[in-house]
């Protein structure tokens, strides 16, 4: 069994509010693992503690309690950050730099230089389809382009883990589709992807495993199948089914005691159902 890419154990993060002794628990005893090579999605509404968790994993924040490790290294360790590529939500890079200069800057920060860096920049610009805008300053980039150059930036040093914070927030549907495609390509190339989102449809499409976080606590976690599976229900996808075949199947089911057809077609929003369910349940718990 290989080392987990991210290992968060009993993570608690408390913020003090001003000088008074008031405080807010942003993350509450959270534990989860992101296995090497998988796409893991942490989902939850705004303010649920996703970004805080991410910042602790990135070493931008210290845990109040518990730990976060990246490939076995403490998240505060500078070596851990060499393994991570990070794309923040709505990234703003230096507007005065061009796309290629931005990648060069981040590459140099990772100790890259010379032909290797040049080749890598070319490769990444091609990957994110920004070759045509390589020499344009970022001030003139659209939001989708910024997100893509951000993604390229996160990959510059060939990290093992890519962390994406709301990767498609504020991007139009076409741009959003491009980014989803890129994430899937990353997984195919062996990157571990850890993403945060509140856009469930997107998570459902790309993630191998999903954790649902609410008010700083992990509510449910598992593979997509496990999460949306309904134990006493089975769905079947049939290709080239004629109306006659469907009628026959329906007939067969009706003939069995207790069995019935609940729904026909895809359950596109099942994750969303689950999510809302959890949200309602935790609200009830609180009251």
């Amino acid at each position, binding site marked *: 069994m290989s080392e987990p890419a991210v290992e968060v154990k009993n993570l608690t993060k408390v913020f003090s509010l001003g000088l008074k002794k008031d405080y807010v628990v942003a993350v509450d005893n959270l534990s989860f693992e992101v296995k090497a*090579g998988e796409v893991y999605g942490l989902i939850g509404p705004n303010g649920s503690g996703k970004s805080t968790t991410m910042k602790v994993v990135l070493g931008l924040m210290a845990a109040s309690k518990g730990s976060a490790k990246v490939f076995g290294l403490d998240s505060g360790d500078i*070596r851990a950050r*060499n393994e991570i590529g990070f794309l923040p939500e709505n990234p703003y890079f*230096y507007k005065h730099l061009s796309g290629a200069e931005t990648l060069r800057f981040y590459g140099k920060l990772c100790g890259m230089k010379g032909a290797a860096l040049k080749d890598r920049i070319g490769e990444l610009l091609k990957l994110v389809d920004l070759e045509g805008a390589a020499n344009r300053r970022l001030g003139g980039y659209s939001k989708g382009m910024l997100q893509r150059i951000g993604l390229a930036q996160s990959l510059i040093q060939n990290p093992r883990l890519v962390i994406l914070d709301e990767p498609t927030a504020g991007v139009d549907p076409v741009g959003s*589709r491009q980014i989803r495609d890129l994430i899937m390509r990353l997984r*195919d190339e062996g990157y571990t992807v850890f993403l945060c989102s509140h856009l469930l449809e997107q998570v459902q499409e790309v993630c191998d495993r999903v954790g649902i976080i609410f008010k700083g606590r992990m509510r449910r976690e598992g593979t997509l199948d496990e999460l949306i599976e309904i134990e006493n229900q089975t769905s079947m996808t049939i290709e080239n089914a004629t109306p006659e075949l469907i009628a026959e199947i329906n007939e067969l089911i009706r003939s069995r005691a207790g069995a019935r057809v609940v729904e026909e077609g895809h359950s596109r929003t099942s994750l969303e159902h689950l999510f809302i369910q959890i949200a309602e349940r935790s609200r009830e718990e609180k009251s």
Partner: protein
Amino acid sequence: MSDTPNAPAESAPRTTPRGAGKSVPIFSIGRVYTIASSTVTQLVRMKTFYFLLAFALVVVAVGNFNIPATPAKELSMIKKVAFGTMDIFAWLFAIVATALLIPKDVEDRTLYTILSKPVRRIEYLLGKLGGVLSVIAISLVAMYAICAVVIFSRESLFVAAEYDSMKASGQYTAAEIEEQLSLIQQQGLRAELGIAVLASFFKASVVAAVTIFLSTFASSSLFTIIVSILLFLIGHAHHMASSFWLDESGNSVVVQMMVKVIKILIPNYQLFSFSEGIVQGEAVVAALVWQMGGLTAGYLVVFLLLSLLVFVDKEF
């Protein structure tokens, strides 16, 4: 449908996870250099150097004032205006650029992407400070070159005119003419003026280090700029204040304590104004310049360490 980009995750081909990357040095001058040079690029692309044009205009204008002054006096005035302007540029730029750049990185979240790379926070601070100081150094050298040209051309003109008129009067010996010309040359272009530029650079370095320290905990750029300027003014006055309030008996203990606290907490910027003496034509004492350089280095190290103390735990 299986070849569409929307294919379900399970159906995609999988490869083995990627291997570990190369090791990371604990501290890297290369990373500091990268951040510093990016800061220089940023400031240059913010059109900072346009200031040099304005400076050139001021110096040339002062050089051509038609005032009934002696050549030496006129040269001295050109020098004072030029070096005074250089000094203001250096410290003001140090405050504004330093106060703007770091909070801007935080606000724009550029800092997230930088610090999520294998970059130490001290490297980031050093890089930013290095970038600002490089721009100041480049500007000072350029301004010095501009005023050297103006001073030298005026000086040559004055020397030639003086020589001709003294010669024509027939009243003076060659040695006396030489003496008179050396009076002008004393106020002209001399190597010591380079030390005056260095003095302004020392001052700007300390100002920038103090501003970096302030910006690690300040909530806004405006706050940093205002407090830095305030400290700058107090830092010039506190010797005067302490000689005025501490030496005079009859001042309350509270006032005396306050003056002492200010003296200990706020840098003594007045010391760094020794360029004024050099510009006035006083002789430079090399040992003192070295000591001032050492003091500047001390300020830089201490204020960077203090900045790091606050910055290293700062959460974004």
